[in-house]
């Protein structure tokens, strides 16, 4: 199940790194949230791993947790490694890796914007895509969209099926048949 990259990382951090739980390419390991900056710095600087690029940082909303997924790439050695970090769903907080890879800066801002993960130590943690005064985090599964934004109503009547607007005050737009 385990590949050379995961073995190398696990040998260096036996406490913090576990996995991979599933067979797959690229190898995906679980990292403890506290050791994340240390593990990331090792991934970048180690001559064998040599993962000098963070190609994608995603957040996934599971029923019991929020998981961060870091896709790392080595252009010189042509291999990939995935780091996964589990966070508490009620208060998702992770240390920033913006000083390890510059690309993480905006990725983390996007993750904060849409999933509400706060990255401790981030140089400029503001919303990236949505307006600054937006309420809530839209990519959470339990997100309820607003009924209006700055006086612009969220409702638009369906011309084929007229329904009173108060019926779908929850922001639900009826489907055309």
């Amino acid at each position: 199940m385990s590949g050379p990259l995961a073995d190398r990382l696990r040998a260096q951090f036996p406490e913090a790194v576990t996995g991979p739980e599933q067979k797959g390419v690229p190898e995906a390991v679980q990292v403890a949230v506290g050791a994340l900056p240390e593990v990331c710095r090792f991934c970048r600087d180690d001559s064998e791993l040599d993962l000098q690029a963070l190609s994608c940082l995603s957040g996934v909303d599971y029923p019991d947790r929020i998981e961060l997924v870091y896709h790392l790439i080595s252009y010189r050695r042509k291999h990939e490694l995935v780091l996964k970090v589990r966070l508490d769903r009620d208060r998702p907080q992770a240390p920033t890796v913006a000083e390890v890879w510059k690309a993480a800066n905006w990725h983390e801002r996007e993750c904060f914007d849409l999933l509400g993960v706060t990255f401790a130590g981030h140089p400029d943690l503001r919303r990236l895509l949505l307006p600054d005064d937006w309420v809530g985090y839209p990519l959470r599964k339990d997100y309820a969209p607003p009924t209006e934004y700055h006086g612009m109503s969220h409702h638009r009547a369906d011309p084929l099926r007229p329904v009173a607007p108060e019926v779908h005050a929850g922001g639900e737009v009826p489907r055309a048949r």
Partner: protein
Amino acid sequence: MECILTSAEWFLNWGRASSIWYLLFGSACCGIELMQTGGPRTDLDRFGAVPRATPRQADLMIVAGTITYKMAERLRLLYEQMAEPRYVIAMGSCANCGGLFQRSYAVLKGVDKVIPVDLYIPGCAPRPEALADAIVKLQQRMRQEKWLRTVRAPQP
């Protein structure tokens, strides 16, 4: 008096209808069709319509594309910067009603929620012929207006 006003109006309307300067507001894929309409095949220039990059010199705003709530406030600001008389064409499904992205949390459900719209062009995206037709219809409307004999309400 009536004769003079009518002639003056005809002249003013002819001038306005023959020089519709439109504001570039391509915010999504309809913007590509808008550019194509300005290109040599459809050639919007033959109606005297030329693109302007500033709202202060524009008579017409062609809203071409999806408008998010974040953009809607900028849209309203740009519309308010345009000098009267001003016109708005909502181009494509997204500008008409939110279109394909209607169920998104961040997309405005039609630009008529923010600014008054004179003409709606259906389509996703409308062909350049449709936009050229809208310009012709707008010219017809402009030629019938009676600006000199209209008592207008004071601006708020």
